[in-house]
């Protein structure tokens, strides 16, 4: 465990916790599920680090993250998902040009998030890995255990559907 190419668990938690949270949040649209997933992934990483052999650390981490997410999805299959909060009215932002911009960007963000959630899971996953996490196609292919051609096709078809939904 003294190999400098292997991060400590604390490093992982610090540097990757936020990314994992964003990944999960964009896939689920639900902050509670996203938080649970971060905890779950960190638990698995903690155990797995002992047996981790130096290699593509990010690939390894995202495989764990993805598996944890899929396990969670399976567990929750029977449970209705909680929709996004619709009531933007609760956001009491004073009416000023700057506030309007903020509000507009929140609305836009919500629209985008809703459109993401409407995508088939495979497409959504590929898009989130690419555009939210900033992974290369090769990294995504490694994480989801699929050929690069599949990644390319999923991202493209996902974007096409997003474009249609966002008008």
């Amino acid at each position, binding site marked *: 465990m003294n190999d400098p190419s292997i991060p400590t668990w604390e490093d992982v938690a610090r540097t990757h916790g936020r990314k994992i*949270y964003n990944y999960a949040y964009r896939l689920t649209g639900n902050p509670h599920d996203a938080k649970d997933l*971060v*905890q779950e992934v*960190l638990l698995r990483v903690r155990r797995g680090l002992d047996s981790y052999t130096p290699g593509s650390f990010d690939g390894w981490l995202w495989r764990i993250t993805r598996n944890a997410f899929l396990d969670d999805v399976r567990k929750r299959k029977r449970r209705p998902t909680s929709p996004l909060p619709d009531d933007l009215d609760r956001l009491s932002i004073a009416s000023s040009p700057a506030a309007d911009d903020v509000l507009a960007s929140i609305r836009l963000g919500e629209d985008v998030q809703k459109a993401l959630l409407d995508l088939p899971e495979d497409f959504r996953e590929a898009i989130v890995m690419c555009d939210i996490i900033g992974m290369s196609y090769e990294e995504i292919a490694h994480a989801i255990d699929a050929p690069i051609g599949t990644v390319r096709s999923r991202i*493209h078809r996902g974007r096409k559907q997003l474009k249609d939904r966002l008008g």
Partner: protein
Amino acid sequence: MSHRPELLSAMLDGELSESEAAWVAAHLDGCGQCRSELDGLASARSAVRGLPMLDLPEDVHPGEPRVTRLWPRRVAVAAMSAAAAAAVTIGALGMIGMASDSSTAVDVGEAEAILAATRSLGVITDGSEAAEYVTSGATAHFSARQTMACLDHDALIDRTVDVTSMGSVTVMSDPLSQLTVLAYGSVATGPVSGPIASVTVTGPAPELDDYDVTAVMTEERHDRATEIVTLGKAGIDRARLWIDVETGVIVHRELLAADGSVSCVADLVEFEPSDTPIQASIPFDLRAEVTETTYDPVTTEFPSVLGGLELVAAYPVEDGEVGVYGDGVFTMAVVRVSGGHPDSVSADRSPTHVWESGGASWAVVGALPSDLLEAVLDGLPAPDDPNPFIEGWRILFG
């Protein structure tokens, strides 16, 4: 000219080979349809990329692993059988009980400290109802209800029992069956509705040393601070415990199969700790009713190890015997009754698994990760082939 729209997204991401990029550039020059497509894809891509990066919520605590407050080392490890209207304190108690005088926190290295704390975990198994409850046997008094569900056993266990801990006495009662189990000190007693006897069985201590114990992180649970501790064997997580930081009581447990999936979940709800003893409604004088008898393990045909769990106690019941297995973390009982329908084994026990083999009825009672349960069943006589006539009769006439 053919269009290759799937290349357009890859181009935006800089993921084209040189030759592909050259082809796309040339194609776009002469194709308005693809240019328009590209614009749409680019705006969809920007929209997603423009989503704000959210901060990790503050109540996720992936900080330094910490050792939580260690609870006093005074516990009972017990299993009981309602069929015998008796209770058994299994062998682990011998080991834990002997080391149980000190109630001071352990100030050795972190891992050893947690391991030492884990040694004091009590496993109180209401073998009769397959409700297993791990407690610190702590001096914290509390009342709660325990819900438990095992997701992938053949028989779904999904039940709720009332739990009251009064220091060294833990009372578990099932509102449905009216069955009450008392466990205190080194003795657990039988259901209050039946004759009360208690039995202490001595046997070899299970190997707790096989488990790695790690305090991982903290989490709010039912508005209380809990420390998550994992118990792993041979590099595989087998259980996760959510330990209430203030009282040391385990408020949530998950049993894990080897592939990491959760087999069983037990949760204490309406957990109410108290500094002062809580009066549970015990309809008789505990001290007056309990008698202690000690059995050495009887000569038994049960295997000495099943699914990695050691036989720690065995005792006779009417027309059969019960073997209690444990490894310090998991506890289960095997019941064998000569003759009769499996119902005769399952009555009052809520077994995880029941079958007939070689003229005897068998049952496994207790919550186990699914792969351990499989290994346990593999080590026991295989079920007889079902008799189609009898099966048909049962389907038709119950």
